[in-house]
Each structure stands twice: as structure tokens, then as C-alpha cells.
């Protein structure tokens, strides 16, 4: 009888202890929402201005020393290329691509540039278990190939399908993605190469807070020219690259199903419990198992002792 009470007390105590250890931690992490570095930089992309000249693609290729393209950058037949039924996307040879979108009811096509959106709380960064990604105070999401193990979780995590894997080199895993020209330009306060190359000033570079203001002003002063939404202001918890569009964003194949919260928020509570489970549960259940089987063992021992005597 005395033994039973002890076991119950042990179980109660251990459950209370593990719960106490788990919940305050989960609460703390959930409360810590990150709203981005103050004065971090961003780019406002105005889709109504783009004429599809691909100068940004050429500038990116030069700045980032990427391999020569299959077709020259002023070859516009690439807009008709489809791979697995999809328009061109970023890969290991190009950090940015421009695609043409024919909009029903519009007498001219729209062009949309794709590159990393540099989220304020990036899903690639939070999904990486070796911390290969860094969100810099300037606003860029950069990547360290020296620690990458090539697991490609970031490619699954990114809501915009941006990180690309260098499949051409099996022993030297490397994720290839736009880094906002961080090393060569952003740290010096200069705009990225694509922004500088654009003849139409489709992209406006500045502090994220300032360009948001500009975006709102453009909508307010010319309400007929834009839909009243800045894509990236809240999408995925906010991105450094944001977009204005003259047509609803889904018509230009933006993913409008992207949640307004950082992707991390959906797994934060769960993930904060994982280390607790991994450290406490083995000890806890071993203890429970030992206590639960102790009575049987002792009875068996008694029996064998009794039969011996």
C-alpha cells in the first residue's frame, strides 16, 4: 500500500514538473513576434511600369557572376517557355526571372519579376537546422554555404518557391538564391543591381517604412491604376520586397493563399515542445516503467525465494 502511494506521487510529481517546464517556454516563444529590423531596406515593385526588357536579369547575372544564359537577355522568346506547364522560375543559374502574363480584358500583357522577397521572418531561415540563413539588419536574407548540409528543407519551407539547389554539384551542396546584393551593394547603402539597371524604375529602393508610404501614396493619387493592396506588407508576416499591381494579384500568379502571419507561427508552439519531449520523456517513461514493473519483479523474487526455501 505504501509503495502504491509512492508511485502515484511520483507520477503526479513528474507530470506537474514536465508540464511546468514546457508551458512557460511555449508561452514565451509564442509571444516573441519579430516585426523586422528598424530602418531595414526594401524594394517596391510596380507591375504597371514593367515592359519586360529583362535588363534586371542581365544586371543580376553580371553582379552575381552567374553562368552565361542559354539565350541572350534581350531574347523575348523565353516568355513562351514552359517547364512542366509552369512559367520560368529561379534556379541555380538565375536569381531573378521576368515572366509575361496575359491578362484577360487588358490590351497589353503584364510582366512580373520574381526573386527572393526577403521576408521579415523568413521560413527558410527558421526551417534550417544548421542556421545557414541570416536575416541581416539591412534587410537581406543571406545564406552560408559552408555550414549547409544540403537537406533542402528551406526549399519546402519557402512560400514563394525561391531557394534553388545546385544539382550540378553533388559533393558541394549549395542553395542558390537572391541575396539582395548584400555584400557588394546593400551594406554600402546602395540599391541592388536589378533596381539600378531598370530603365522604367519599376523598382523603388528605400527603407521599408518609406517605400510602404510611397506605395500607399501611389494608390491614393491614382486609385484607378492599382488594386488597393500592397502585396508583401503583411504576406508571410511581411516581406522586404513588396508589389503594386493594376490587376488582382492572383491574375499575375501571385500566391494569394500565403498567410498573413510568419510561417513559423504555425509550428512555433509545437517546435518549442520538441526539445522538452526529447529530454524529459525518455527519463520519465523509463522511471514509470521501472516503478510499474517493480512490484511484479519483487513478487516473482518472493515466489522464487519461497519455492527455494
Amino acid at each position, binding site marked *: 500500500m505504501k509503495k502504491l502511494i509512492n508511485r502515484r506521487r511520483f507520477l503526479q510529481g513528474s507530470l506537474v514538473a514536465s508540464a511546468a517546464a514546457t508551458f512557460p517556454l511555449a508561452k514565451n516563444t509564442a509571444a516573441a513576434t519579430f516585426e523586422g529590423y528598424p530602418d531595414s*531596406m526594401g524594394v517596391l515593385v510596380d507591375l504597371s*511600369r514593367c*515592359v519586360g*526588357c529583362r535588363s534586371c536579369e*542581365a*544586371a543580376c547575372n*553580371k553582379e552575381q*557572376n552567374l*553562368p*552565361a*544564359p*542559354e*539565350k*541572350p*537577355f*534581350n531574347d523575348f522568346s523565353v516568355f513562351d517557355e514552359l517547364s512542366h506547364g509552369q512559367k520560368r522560375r529561379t534556379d541555380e*543559374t538565375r536569381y531573378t526571372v521576368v515572366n509575361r502574363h496575359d491578362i484577360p480584358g487588358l490590351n*497589353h500583357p503584364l510582366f512580373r519579376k520574381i526573386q527572393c522577397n526577403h521576408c521579415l521572418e523568413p521560413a527558410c531561415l527558421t526551417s534550417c537546422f544548421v542556421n545557414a540563413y541570416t536575416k541581416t539588419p539591412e534587410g537581406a536574407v543571406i545564406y552560408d554555404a559552408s555550414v549547409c548540409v544540403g537537406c533542402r528543407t528551406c526549399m519546402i519551407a519557402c512560400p514563394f518557391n525561391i531557394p534553388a539547389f545546385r544539382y550540378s554539384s553533388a559533393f558541394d551542396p549549395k542553395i542558390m538564391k537572391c541575396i539582395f546584393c548584400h555584400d557588394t551593394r546593400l551594406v*554600402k*547603402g*546602395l*540599391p541592388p543591381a536589378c*533596381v*539600378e539597371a*531598370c*530603365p*522604367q*524604375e519599376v523598382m*523603388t*529602393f*528605400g*527603407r521599408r517604412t*518609406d517605400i510602404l*508610404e*510611397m506605395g500607399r*501614396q*501611389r494608390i491614393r*493619387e491614382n486609385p484607378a491604376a492599382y488594386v488597393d493592396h500592397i502585396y508583401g506588407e503583411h504576406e508571410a508576416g511581411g516581406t522586404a520586397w513588396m508589389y503594386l499591381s493594376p490587376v488582382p494579384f492572383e491574375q499575375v500568379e501571385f500566391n494569394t493563399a500565403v498567410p498573413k502571419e510568419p510561417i513559423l507561427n504555425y509550428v512555433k508552439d509545437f517546435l518549442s515542445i520538441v526539445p522538452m519531449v526529447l529530454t524529459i520523456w525518455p527519463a520519465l517513461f523509463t522511471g514509470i516503467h521501472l516503478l510499474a514493473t517493480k512490484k511484479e519483479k519483487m513478487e516473482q523474487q518472493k515466489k522464487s525465494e519461497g519455492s527455494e526455501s
Partner: protein
Amino acid sequence: MKTTHRTLFVAVALLLAGASPGLGQTMDEYDAPTTVTIDSLSELYEPVIFSHVRHTKLAGCKDCHHHTTGHQDMHPNCVRCHLHSPPSQTVSCKDCHTRQQFYPEQVTELSNPNIYHIDKPGLKGAYHLNCIPCHVEKNAPSHCEGCHAMTDAGKDFFYLTDKTSATTKNKDNRVR
């Protein structure tokens, strides 16, 4: 007015023979240049020899120079402040639209609450945003080389030359 018109557009304003005054035009065509060589940005493309006199016959002053010359621009957003503004002393694009755009001092200057024109295009943006919509509308050349021929540097930049493919690291990757 004469001195300001002379600096129209970019540094090299070629004041050739004076244009004959157009009838019924508000602008002083005597003062306006016949051609303007737009070359302050030329790197990937050759300079543009812009026939100013030809364009004055196709569009009014305010269509390109907004509130600065001739007729008052009646855009509702402009007249909020500029309804009674006199013709401006500056008519050259480059006097307001800077060649360098988004440089650090300019970016930090935006926190000054007294600046209204926070969204002013740079010189390159101002030219293209001004010229292309009208060229498209009037069926004038609207592709890049319709106005300016590509330089050798431009051909390298866009991977158009054989020289480029021979010097790049991954020349085997390239199919033309």
C-alpha cells in the same frame, strides 16, 4: 526664360539654327532647342539625338515638362498646390531628376517631413516613363533599340557578342 530653355534636358543642348515659330503655340519656340543630345546616361546604349522641334509638333509643352512651362498642368493632384504656380525657372529634366537614384543620402532624406515629392523618379526613370507610354500610344518605336542603338558594352551585358561567350566561365552552357 532663354537661359533656362537652353539647358533643356541634358548637358549637351545643341542650339542649332533657330526653329521657326509655330502658330498658336504658347511655348516660346524661339527659345527651345532644335535637337537635344541625351548622353548623360549612355553606357549600354548610344546617346539619343532627340529632335525637340519634331516633338513640339506632336505634343504640348506640359505633356512632357509637366508644370514647368506653357499651359498649366491641370492634373488634380498637381493643382492641389500648384494651381497658382508661375512657370518654373527649371525646365531641364536633369535639374530635378537626378542621374544617380536611391543613393544613401537620398534615402535618408525621405524622413524629412517637409518633403512632399517623396516618390520622384531618377533621370533614367523619368525619361522612359515619360517617353514610352506616348510612343506606344502613337505607334512610334517603343522597343529599346528603336530610340538608342546598343553599344559594345551593352552587347556584352546582354550576352550578344561571341567575345562574351568566349570569356565567360560556362561557355558550354550557352546555346544560341
